[in-house]
C-alpha cells in the first residue's frame, strides 16, 4: 500500500510542478509596464507541452483578462475573483504567501469541476495580478492514475476543507468510510488537499483461495511482464525522452528567471575575450549602460585601469583550468564615469576538468561598505596618530603601579621603551617628596571609578636619571572589562615648570632690587636733605644778624656742612658704582691668598692691639669673585672686628672656611662688644646705620660689603650677642 501511496503522491506533484512551470512562463510574458506580450503565441505551445493543463488565464488586478483555449472559456473574461466571496480567500492566500496556490476543486463557470493554480506576479515589488492554470479534476485524478491503481483492492477519496464553512468536503463518489476503511492519507499543502486511501473490504475472508490466487497471480504477472516488455518498451523510451526534455526546459526556465530577476548583477562573459554575451537588468542598472551598448563591450570597458591586469590574469588561469572559480573586490566605472566598488564572483560554465568558453560573473555593489571601511580605517589611523605622536603619554597600569599598556610616546618622554616601562614600577619613579601627592591622587581615583582625577605636578625620573616635572590625570577604569586598569595621561611640563621657577626667581630679584632702590632713594633724599636744610638754616641765621663775629661763625659752619655733604656724595657714588657695575671681572680666587694680603695690610693695628687671629681655611677653598671686592669685603669685616673690640679682654678673631652642601662658607667670628640684634636686626646692613656713638663709625662699611657680596651672587648673615661677640657668615655662590 505504501507503494501505491508513493505513486499517487509522485503523480500529483508532477502535475503541480508542470502547473508551476506554465504559470511562471506566462508570468514572464508581462513586461515592465505590466502589459502582456505574446500570449496568443505562447499559450498553445505550453498547453501542448503540458497536456495535464486544461486552460491558462491571465488575471491582472484579480480580473480575468486573457484565457486560452478561448472558445470554451470566454464566459469568464471580466470576472473579478477578488470580489467574489467564493474565490477571494484562496486568491488572497496566494498573494499573502507569495507562492502559487491551488484553489478548489470547485465548479467552473464554464462547466465542470476543476482546480485553479494561481501564481501571484509582482512587478517592482508590487502585486500585478495572477498567472493562473486550470486543471479539471478528472485530468488531475487521471494524471494521478487513481483508477488504474485502485482496481479491486483500494478505494480513494479526495478532500479539502471548505474555505468558507471550514468543513471537510469530499469530491469522489464512493462509500469509503474514513473511520472504518482508512489506513493512510497524503496531504498536499499547495492546495490543502488530502487524499485518503483504504482497503475495499477488510472483512472478507479469502484465505482458502490463496494458493490458487497465488498461482494465477504468478502466471498473470509473468504474462503481463512479457506483454509489457514487448509492447511497452517503445512507449517507455518515449516517455523517458519526454520527461527529460521537460526537465531541461524546466531548468532553463528556472535559470532564466533567476538570471533576470536576481537582485545582484549577473553577466555571461566569453572567457577568452572578456566580451559580454548576456547581462541582466540589475547589472545594466549598476553600470548605467543599455543592453545594446553592453553587447559591443568587454569587461575592460567598465573596469578601473588599475584592476584590469589582475582580472585578466585570473581569467587566464580560469581558462587554463588552474583555478575553478574566483572572486575579487574591484572598481567598476559607470557610464557617467563614476567609480563604484563591487565584489565580483566568477564561475565557469563548464565542468571541472573540461574546457569551455563562457563564464558567469555575479556583481554586487559594495561601495557603501568600502566607503564605511575606508572611513573606519581613516578614523583608526587618526586616532592612533593622536595617541602615538601626542605630547602626552597614555598608560594603563594596575592598582599596584605596574604598566600594562603604554602609548609609544612614552619613549620620547621617559626614555623607556614600551617594553622596558612594563618592568618598572610607577611609584619607584616618583620623587620621594612628591610620592604623597601621587598616592593621594591614586587614592582619589580608586575611590571614584570612571572619574578623571587631575593631580598636582610631580617629579618623575626618566631613564637617564633626570627628574622631569609631570602633570597627570588618572582615571580608574578597573571595572571596565575592555580596559581593566587605571588609565593615566602624563604630560611633561618641565619646561613650563622651569620657566615658572625662573620667573619666580626673576620676580624675587626684581623685588629685591626694587627694595634696594627704594632704600637708596630714601637715603639720598634724607641725607642730602639733611645737609641742604642745614645750609638753609645757616643762611637764614646769617641774614638776620648784624654781628660780624656771628657771621664769621656761620661761614665756619657752612664749610663744615660742605665737608659733610662731600663725604655723603662720595659714599653714595661708591654705592651706585657697586649696584650698576655689571661687567666686573669675576675669577676663581683662593681665600687663603687674600686673607694673607688683608692680614698683612692690618699688621700694624693687629700688633698694636695684641689681637690673636686663628685661621682654619682649606687651601682648596676657591670662590668666584671680583678681586677688588674680595679685598674690600675681608678688610671691612676684619677692621670692624678690631674697631668694635671689647676693651676688657684680648681680641680673638677666628676665621673658618667650610663647605655647606655644595657652596663655600666663610665664618669670621670675634669676641667683641656685639650688636643688639633684637633692636637693630633689620638695619644692621643699612646705609648710615650706626649702633655706637664712636665718632668714626659712619654706617657705610657693612652696607657696601653686603652690596659687594650680593653683586657676586652670594649672601651674608650675622649672629651676635651683646658683650660676647659677633659672627658674620659669608655664603659664596
Amino acid at each position: 500500500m505504501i507503494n501505491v501511496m508513493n505513486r499517487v503522491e509522485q503523480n500529483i506533484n508532477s502535475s503541480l510542478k508542470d502547473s508551476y512551470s506554465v504559470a511562471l512562463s506566462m508570468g514572464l510574458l508581462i513586461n515592465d509596464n505590466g502589459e502582456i506580450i505574446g500570449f496568443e503565441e505562447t499559450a498553445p505551445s505550453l498547453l501542448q507541452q503540458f497536456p495535464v493543463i486544461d486552460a491558462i488565464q491571465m488575471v491582472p488586478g484579480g480580473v480575468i483578462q486573457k484565457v486560452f483555449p478561448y472558445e470554451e472559456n470566454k464566459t469568464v473574461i471580466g470576472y473579478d475573483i477578488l470580489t467574489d466571496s467564493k474565490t477571494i480567500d484562496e486568491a488572497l492566500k496566494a498573494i499573502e504567501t507569495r507562492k502559487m496556490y491551488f484553489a478548489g476543486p470547485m465548479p467552473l463557470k464554464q462547466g465542470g469541476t476543476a482546480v485553479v493554480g494561481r501564481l501571484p506576479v509582482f512587478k517592482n515589488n508590487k502585486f500585478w495580478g495572477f498567472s493562473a492554470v486550470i486543471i479539471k479534476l478528472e485530468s488531475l485524478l487521471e494524471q494521478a492514475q487513481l483508477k488504474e491503481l485502485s482496481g479491486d483492492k483500494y478505494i480513494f477519496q479526495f478532500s479539502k476543507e471548505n474555505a468558507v464553512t471550514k468543513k471537510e468536503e469530499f469530491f469522489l463518489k464512493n462509500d469509503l468510510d474514513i473511520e472504518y476503511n482508512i489506513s493512510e492519507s497524503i496531504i498536499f499543502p499547495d492546495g490543502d488537499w488530502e487524499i485518503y486511501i483504504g482497503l475495499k473490504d477488510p472483512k472478507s475472508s479469502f484465505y482458502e483461495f490463496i494458493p490458487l490466487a497465488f498461482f494465477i497471480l504468478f502466471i498473470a504477472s509473468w504474462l503481463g511482464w512479457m506483454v509489457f516488455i514487448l509492447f511497452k518498451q517503445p512507449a517507455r523510451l518515449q516517455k523517458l525522452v519526454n520527461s527529460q526534455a521537460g526537465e531541461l526546459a524546466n531548468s532553463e526556465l528556472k535559470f532564466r528567471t533567476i538570471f533576470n530577476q536576481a537582485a545582484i548583477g549577473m553577466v555571461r562573459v566569453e572567457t577568452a575575450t572578456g566580451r559580454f554575451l548576456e547581462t541582466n537588468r540589475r547589472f545594466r542598472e549598476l553600470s548605467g549602460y543599455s543592453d545594446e551598448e553592453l553587447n559591443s563591450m568587454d569587461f575592460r570597458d567598465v573596469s578601473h585601469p588599475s584592476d584590469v591586469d589582475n582580472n585578466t590574469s585570473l581569467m587566464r588561469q580560469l581558462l587554463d583550468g588552474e583555478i575553478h572559480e574566483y572572486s575579487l573586490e574591484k572598481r567598476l566605472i559607470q557610464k557617467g564615469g563614476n567609480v563604484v566598488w563591487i565584489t565580483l564572483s566568477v564561475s565557469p560554465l563548464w565542468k571541472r576538468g573540461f574546457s569551455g568558453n563562457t563564464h558567469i560573473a555575479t556583481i554586487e555593489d559594495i561601495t557603501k561598505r568600502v566607503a564605511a571601511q575606508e572611513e573606519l580605517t581613516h578614523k583608526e589611523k587618526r586616532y592612533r596618530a593622536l595617541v602615538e605622536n601626542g605630547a602626552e603619554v597614555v598608560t594603563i597600569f594596575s592598582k599596584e603601579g605596574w604598566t600594562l599598556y603604554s602609548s609609544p610616546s612614552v619613549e620620547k618622554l621617559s626614555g623607556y621603551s614600551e617594553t622596558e616601562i612594563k618592568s618598572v614600577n610607577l611609584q619607584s619613579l616618583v620623587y620621594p617628596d612628591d610620592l604623597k601627592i601621587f598616592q593621594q591622587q591614586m587614592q582619589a581615583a580608586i575611590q571614584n571609578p570612571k572619574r578623571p582625577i587631575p593631580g598636582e605636578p610631580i617629579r618623575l625620573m626618566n631613564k637617564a636619571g633626570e627628574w622631569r616635572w609631570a602633570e597627570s590625570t588618572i582615571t580608574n577604569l578597573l571595572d571596565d572589562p575592555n580596559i581593566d586598569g587605571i588609565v593615566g595621561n602624563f604630560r611633561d611640563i618641565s619646561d613650563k615648570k622651569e620657566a615658572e621657577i625662573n620667573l619666580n626667581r626673576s620676580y624675587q630679584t626684581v623685588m629685591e632690587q626694587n627694595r634696594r632702590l627704594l632704600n637708596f632713594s630714601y637715603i639720598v633724599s634724607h641725607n642730602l636733605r639733611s645737609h641742604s636744610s642745614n645750609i638753609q638754616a645757616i643762611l637764614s641765621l646769617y641774614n638776620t644778624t648784624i654781628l660780624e663775629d656771628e657771621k664769621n661763625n656761620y661761614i665756619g659752619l657752612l664749610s663744615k656742612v660742605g665737608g659733610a655733604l662731600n663725604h655723603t656724595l662720595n659714599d653714595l657714588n661708591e654705592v651706585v658704582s657697586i649696584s650698576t657695575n655689571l661687567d666686573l671681572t669675576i675669577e676663581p680666587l683662593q681665600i687663603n691668598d687674600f686673607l694673607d694680603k688683608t692680614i698683612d695690610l692690618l699688621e700694624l693695628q693687629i700688633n698694636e692691639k695684641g689681637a690673636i687671629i686663628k685661621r682654619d681655611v682649606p687651601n682648596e677653598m676657591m670662590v668666584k669673585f671680583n678681586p677688588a671686592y674680595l679685598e674690600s669685603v675681608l678688610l671691612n669685616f676684619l677692621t670692624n672686628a678690631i674697631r668694635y673690640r671689647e676693651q676688657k679682654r684680648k681680641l680673638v678673631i677666628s676665621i673658618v672656611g667650610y663647605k655647606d652642601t655644595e657652596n663655600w662658607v666663610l665664618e669670621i667670628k670675634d669676641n667683641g662688644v656685639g650688636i643688639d640684634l633684637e633692636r637693630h636686626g633689620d638695619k644692621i646692613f643699612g646705609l648710615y646705620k650706626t649702633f655706637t656713638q664712636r665718632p668714626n663709625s659712619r654706617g657705610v662699611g657693612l652696607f657696601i660689603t653686603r652690596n659687594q657680596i650680593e653683586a657676586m651672587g652670594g649672601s651674608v648673615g650675622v649672629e651676635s650677642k651683646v658683650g660676647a661677640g659677633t659672627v658674620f657668615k659669608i655664603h659664596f655662590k
Partner: protein
Amino acid sequence: MRESICVIDDDQIYQLIIKKVVERTEEFESVCFYSDGLDAFEDFKSPKYQLPEIILLDINMPQMDGWQFLDCLISSKPDFDKETAIYIVSSSIAYSDITKAESYTQVSGFLSKPLSVDKLKEIASKHRK
C-alpha cells in the same frame, strides 16, 4: 612763664643751628641737647625727672632712633603727653615717616627741617601755659 625745650638729634651742626634759633625766639627759659634717643631716655625714665614742655625729636639716630625712644617713653610714662609736647623734626620727606608720626596720638606734629625761628615761636605760643 618761660618754657623749657629739649632737642634730641645726632647731627652736631644741626644742634649748633637749633641753639641759635631757640635763642632768637626768646621764648624759652632753658634748652637741653641729646645726641641719641638712648641718652635722652636714660634721663627721662626717672620718675623725678621734670620733662621739658617741648621736645624736638629726630628719627635717625645710631643707638636708639626716634620711634624706639617714643615706644620706650610711652611704656615707662604712659601719661607723659600731659606734661610735654613732642614734635618729630626730620629732614625726611618720606610719606611713610609722616604717616607713622600721625599714628602716634602722643605726637603733636611732624616738622620738616629746616626749622625757622617763626615756626618755633608759633609752637611755643601754642603750648604756653
